[in-house]
């Protein structure tokens, strides 16, 4: 798809049509074609207007200023109310939203040295209150984020913008202090806020905008009934396709069993965020009048080591632990065989994915031999030790996550068989993911990260595996595993300073190879979000590159 093609994003409809063309032209299998035909069926019939969709969420969205610190569930609401300059589609390509086109080096939008971005904005867009959207709003959004009086979620990336100017009302020019390739991804996750509303508030952190947000998105803010639901109404002056629905309601249902029951009774139309848990999958398949969506996500489940612990400093130990992990049974028995196994922090759908990584091998015999060779001898208690360091450590995760608890117990058995002692030490989320995690006080944790998606759809790992980004040492970053590797530092820096996917690709392939070789963390599988929608709902489309699948709610409609 040429990135310069303007107004290409008509929601899910055109995406489906493109899929159909690709599938038939490419002579793809019958299954793929029939899937595309279904999509075409949706596209061929004119979308019908009216109706509402109730999305069940297991967490409550409460933060409506998209620039404030927020959690994943808030993002879905932001996507309905606001727009970024562009966003990533399910195929991993940026498509324009408030911008008229995606800047590239080829179309002159990005200068050859990677220091200047010229962004042309879509004309004729209005805010929900009728005021026109202009380049001044983009400029204001950046100023707002950088304003020291505002508690922004993050300034990382934005602080590298030396100047942001607006030569005319529909053009924005960014000058960077040094090349920063994730700049496109950063702006795909930067929701533009209105200058004419927020420009005049006295308290940047608490003001009327927080409870009555005004955006340019396909839905306008209706009401929030605290602790219960949020109602968004159709924006009839939306510039893009749709919205076809009258309203979208986000209903907070904290318990996943209750969520599933309410989906069964038809009280909710879409199961959002965590969706349907794997242990309900079989039951869900037997439900009539519902559609199940089971696309893999970019979330990778990891066994996350703290390399600050002496047990894990020896690479042989990490290799042996990987060899001693019965990954296939882990996925089959605990996760019902649903999620595909993973060797990388990136999913195959990413342009930066390295398909040539060695496959994991389950070989406890080899694991024992490697440990033996390296001098990790079995002690009187059956646990290996070397120079007074026992191969004993704890593993933590959020308490109460039943499936993961079973996975931990399974791993405990796996590793016991090679002379390694893993104790399970689970804690409430507010404990394990606080200082305990961020200040590297853990031995190991079981955790799922979406490194690609959290960077807005970019393979950047500087923050995660760069040696200058260890929170406990430098006070910044997210390298809680305390990984230090000079070659990684060099490549990770290079990866963000070289502009253009083709030039970045070999760098990230190397990075993945190093991580697979060095195993600072053990990748296990790609999460699959099992989501259910009522059968009549058209154009619901999972997008693994975004944190919420309400991303194209403007294109949803009910077939009567």
């Amino acid at each position, binding site marked *: 798809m040429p990135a310069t093609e303007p107004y290409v994003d008509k929601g899910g409809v055109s995406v489906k049509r493109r899929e159909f063309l690709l599938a038939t032209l490419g002579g793809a299998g019958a299954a793929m074609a029939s899937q595309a035909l279904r999509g075409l069926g949706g596209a061929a019939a004119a979308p019908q207007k009216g109706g509402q969709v109730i999305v069940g969420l297991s967490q409550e969205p409460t933060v409506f200023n998209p620039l404030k610190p927020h*959690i994943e569930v808030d993002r879905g609401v932001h996507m309905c109310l606001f727009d970024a300059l562009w966003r990533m589609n399910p195929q991993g390509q940026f498509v324009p939203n408030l911008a008229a086109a995606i800047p590239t080096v080829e179309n002159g939008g990005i200068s050859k040295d990677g220091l200047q971005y010229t962004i042309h904005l879509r004309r004729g867009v209005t805010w929900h209150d009728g005021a026109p959207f202009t380049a001044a709003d983009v400029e204001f959004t950046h100023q707002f984020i950088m304003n020291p009086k505002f508690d922004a979620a993050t300034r990382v990336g934005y602080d590298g913008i030396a100047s942001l100017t607006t030569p005319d009302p529909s053009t924005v020019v960014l000058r960077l202090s040094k090349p920063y390739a994730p700049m496109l991804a950063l702006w795909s996750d930067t929701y533009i806020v209105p200058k004419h509303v927020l420009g005049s508030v006295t308290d940047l952190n608490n003001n009327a905008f927080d409870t009555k947000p005004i955006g340019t998105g396909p839905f306008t803010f209706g009401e929030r009934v605290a602790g219960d639901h949020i109602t968004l109404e159709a924006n009839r002056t939306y510039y893009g396709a749709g919205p076809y629905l009258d309203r979208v309601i986000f209903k907070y249902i*904290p318990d996943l069993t209750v969520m599933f*029951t309410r989906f069964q009774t038809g009280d909710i139309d879409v199961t959002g965020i965590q969706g349907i848990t794997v242990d309900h999958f079989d039951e869900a398949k037997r439900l009539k009048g519902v559609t199940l969506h089971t696309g893999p996500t970019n979330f990778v489940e990891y066994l996350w080591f703290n390399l600050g612990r002496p047990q894990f400093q020896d690479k042989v130990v990490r290799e042996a632990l990987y060899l001693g992990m019965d990954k296939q049974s882990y996925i089959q028995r605990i996760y019902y065989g649903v999620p595909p196994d993973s060797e990388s922090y990136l999913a195959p759908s990413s342009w930066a994915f390295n398909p040539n990584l060695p496959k994991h091998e389950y070989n406890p015999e080899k694991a024992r031999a490697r440990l033996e060779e390296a001098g990790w001898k079995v002690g009187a208690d059956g646990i290996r030790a070397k120079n007074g360091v026992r191969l004993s450590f704890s593993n933590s995760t959020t308490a109460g996550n039943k499936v993961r608890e079973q996975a931990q117990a399974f791993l405990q058995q796996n590793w016991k068989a090679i002379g390694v002692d893993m104790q399970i030490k689970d*804690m*409430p989320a*507010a404990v394990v993911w606080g200082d305990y995690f961020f200040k590297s006080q853990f031995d190991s944790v079981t955790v799922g990260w979406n490194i690609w998606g959290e960077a807005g759809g970019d393979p950047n790992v500087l923050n995660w595996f760069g040696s200058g980004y260890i929170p406990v040492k430098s006070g910044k*970053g997210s390298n809680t595993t305390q990984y230090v590797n000079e070659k990684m530092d060099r490549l990770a820096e290079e990866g963000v300073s070289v502009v253009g996917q083709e030039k970045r690709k070999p760098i990230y392939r190397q990075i993945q190879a190093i991580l697979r070789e060095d195993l600072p963390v053990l990748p296990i599988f790609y999460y699959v979000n099992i989501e259910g929608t009522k059968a009549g709902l058209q154009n619901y489309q999972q997008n693994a590159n975004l944190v919420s699948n309400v991303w194209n709610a403007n294109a949803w409609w009910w077939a009567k």
Partner: protein
Amino acid sequence: MGRYLMRRLLQGGAVLVGVTVIAFALLHLAPGGPLAMYTLTTSMGAEDLARISHELGLDQPLPVQYARWAANLVHGDWGRSYRDSRPVLVDIADRLPGTVELMLASLLLAIGIGVAVGILGALRRYSIFDYLATTGAMVSLSIPTFWFGLMMIFVFSVTLGWIPSGDMYSLGRPFSLVDRLHHLVGPVTVLGLVLVAPWSRYTRSGMLEVLYQDYVRTARAKGVPAPRVVVQHALRNALIPLLTLAGVQLPMLFGGALVTETVFSWPGMGRFFVDSLGYRDYPVLMGILIFTAVLVILGNLLADLLYAVVDPRIRFG
């Protein structure tokens, strides 16, 4: 009476100060913190977390944090929620109508059934009805609410389709009283039946105590009709322990019921507290704790004062 009231209120004030100190210390000393909510879900790094921690004053020593919080409270500022940044009182006030609606309806149902069953049980002691009522009370007390609620939904919503499976009202539809009442049936039945046991047991034992008193026998002997003996002579005196129960349950009226709220997707105080605990939303947690403490103190005081109204033998000095 006035002096008694003054003394009780002063005592209550002192208790309240103690509650805030202990609650503040316990909440902050418990491991974990509010910033953990950002770790799992966004791309915020350690520098962002440190900055926000500083903005929230969480990097200050605990006594300083308490002093700052208490000083604001004295000036009527209860602080803002870390999760939705609205004033704590607004957040609490928003949950009250739903909470009171559910709790009041359930308590009324529980009291109605409980008192009736208790009186009948006392009048027909050791009858089949009495045994059934006793067993029923035991079952209703020990039944897990979560399971009971889900069973209600499974039978009456999923299978029969008689009642909604949750919510306060049909979302996205105009207000309708019938719709509201319809949505109350499920949660009120579950919660009402759970709460019925203490009321029926207290009424039964209270009634049994007074039914064999001399004045009841006298009333009967002089030919007062049986219903009047029961209601006017016996019940009024059996009410005293029930007042204690009402006083104890008053905070519940505003405190909500976590499990029922969860099963029936009901936005009440019970869930608000647990959610806030999960997020370590300290200002909200402190707000709810103070609010509940005030209710407990007032509830007990009210019960004691009402004693004097129902029982002329009781005097305050």
